[in-house]
């Protein structure tokens, strides 16, 4: 952890760091993200992808999500929404992640990243209360 002199990286430079990391590719590629509109100098809209974990009902499915990083990011969490229909405890009926049921958003802090959110969502898919939930047909969208 940073000491008392901790330096605060401003929003845009933080997002540029995340962009560069996303472009290089993360880990084994089971989660990824990039900018939705490469022309947007304010880097507001992002697209994330999660590959459903094996040994769950999500195995083999590819989930696309929208992440909106507002002007107060990363002080405030992004808004995160599934494009693909999914049945999961933290997902509202319109596909939006409900921060009350997803600690990475509900207890957000500025050290979290879009990678944190996607990785934690994928982990959530493997949770006992989610891994066997009946799912909407593959390929259906909100």
């Amino acid at each position, binding site marked *: 952890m940073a000491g008392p*002199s*901790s*330096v*605060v990286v*401003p929003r*845009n430079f933080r997002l*540029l760091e995340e962009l560069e990391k996303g472009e290089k590719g993360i880990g084994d590629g089971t989660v990824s993200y990039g900018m939705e509109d490469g022309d947007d*100098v304010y880097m507001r809209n992002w697209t994330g992808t999660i590959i459903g974990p094996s040994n769950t009902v999500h195995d083999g499915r590819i989930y696309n999500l929208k992440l909106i990083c507002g002007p107060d990011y990363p002080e405030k969490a992004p808004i995160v929404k599934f494009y693909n229909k999914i049945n999961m405890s933290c997902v509202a009926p319109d596909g939006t992640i409900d921060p009350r049921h997803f600690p990475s958003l509900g207890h957000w802090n500025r050290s979290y990243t879009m990678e944190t959110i996607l990785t934690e969502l994928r982990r959530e898919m493997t949770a006992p209360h989610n891994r066997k939930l009946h799912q909407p047909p593959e390929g259906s969208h909100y």
Partner: protein
Amino acid sequence: MAGQAQLPRRIVKETQRLLSEPAPGISASPCEDNLRYFNVIILGPQNTPYEGGTFKLELFLPEDYPMAPPKVRFLTRIYHPNIDKLGRICLDILKDKWSPALQIRTVLLSIQALLSAPNPDDPLAEAVAKHWKENEKEAVETAKQWTLTYATDG
């Protein structure tokens, strides 16, 4: 505020000098809530397609500054072979040619100089560089148009 209490003396001195003796055509002022984060304005140099334009940039001094270079980016859109769509700048002193002997001022002067001397042989914006090499006159015309559209008030 974090980052404010223990701002290194070097940054304090550089900031004071930027404010008291600004370089011609360049202004840089720190944000109140983050003294490592600067709002920068560079005026388009004369006799370039950027003349008459007011270009906004942002600059951030990372934790390991001055051992590491500042991070700088254009916020105003600009048609230039070494500046990409997100405003990122391809300039050697911002990367491997950085030296702690350089300063915020020298970086900004170098960016201003880059506007006067586009280098399409070391491109960041590939399409713009190609345009520049194949038809410089037309590329310069596009750059003027962009200056008018994005970097001029009203």
